[in-house]
């Protein structure tokens, strides 16, 4: 499918992280080049390997933050004018904090677990997929991959960036689900919106 063309809620929106430890932002950050990092889904408990294209979906997301770089508008006084002018300054890198319904097993600090990546200082590729409908892909490994038979089966809008999994803060609850805040630092521009066609 192509970009989402109707108004609607992003019920199936997805955040994924590329598990390749040698990840680097593509020299030409095109949709096709970014897509190569998100070709095969692997489990939380799978080992990080140098295999390009392996990614893991970050599950149980409860709330996404705003996407993209916030504006940094600077007011510039203008002599002889009643109002100042505004110019776009260099924006501060946003803090990308994702609220999760916390499932400790998924974030355990053990060999080969995704939890090991939190605070390891390595650069990873991230993909946010805005999805109003669930992927119709029939194969588990590619259902949410940036391939025609995966996200290409439904209307999708994709955003990519490089970042680090900086911290996971647990927020125990007594009357609601336990939550956690996953903080991702932004180490590149945001690229998108792209889409994957069938």
């Amino acid at each position, binding site marked *: 499918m192509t970009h989402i*063309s*109707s*108004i*609607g*809620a992003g019920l199936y929106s997805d955040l994924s992280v590329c598990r390749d430890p040698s990840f680097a932002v593509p020299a030409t950050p095109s949709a096709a080049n970014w897509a190569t990092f998100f070709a095969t889904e692997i489990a939380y408990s799978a080992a990080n390997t140098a295999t390009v294209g392996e990614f893991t979906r970050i599950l149980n997301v409860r709330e996404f933050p705003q996407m993209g770089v916030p504006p940094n508008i600077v007011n510039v006084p203008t002599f002889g004018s009643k109002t100042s002018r505004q110019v776009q300054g260099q924006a501060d890198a946003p803090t990308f904090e994702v609220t999760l319904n916390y499932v400790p097993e998924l974030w355990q600090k053990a060999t080969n677990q995704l939890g090991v990546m939190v605070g390891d200082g390595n650069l990873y590729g991230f993909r946010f997929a805005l999805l*109003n*409908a669930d992927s119709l892909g029939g194969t588990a490994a590619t259902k949410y991959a940036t391939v025609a038979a995966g996200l290409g089966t439904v209307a999708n809008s994709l955003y990519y960036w490089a970042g680090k999994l900086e911290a996971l803060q647990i927020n125990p609850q007594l009357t609601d689900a336990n939550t956690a805040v996953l903080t991702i630092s932004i180490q590149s521009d945001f690229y998108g919106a792209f889409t994957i066609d069938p």
Partner: protein
Amino acid sequence: MGKYLNIDTRIFSIFGSDAWLSESVKTYPCNFIKLDSTVPYIRISIIPSGIGVNKNSVSGVLIADIFIPNGSGPKAASTIADKLDTHLINKTFEIAEGVSTQFFNSTHSLVGTDVDNSALYRTTYTIPFNYNEV
């Protein structure tokens, strides 16, 4: 076609699809005189009574009254509610370019013995939806 007729047409078509017919649950729209009283069956009411995000859009709720034999326990009703979930929950139905109906999460409540027919037990399956038009 206006938005209300669009909603009726698209949602009722779900219950006319092969996928739903294969569930073997007799389904009737509201305000329809059914030809037999075989139970279980469900009665669908579409209530587009909420505010939309623009003048072409509206939110609402789909109510499915589920009728099962009185005195047979709740399992049959829960089974039908689960079937409805399979076909409706979090589903988006494109009607045309830029026109869609999107369902959210459902609830299922036990009402009790049907006031019109004491041989029936009624439960109510409810699921909110948004109809959006660009």
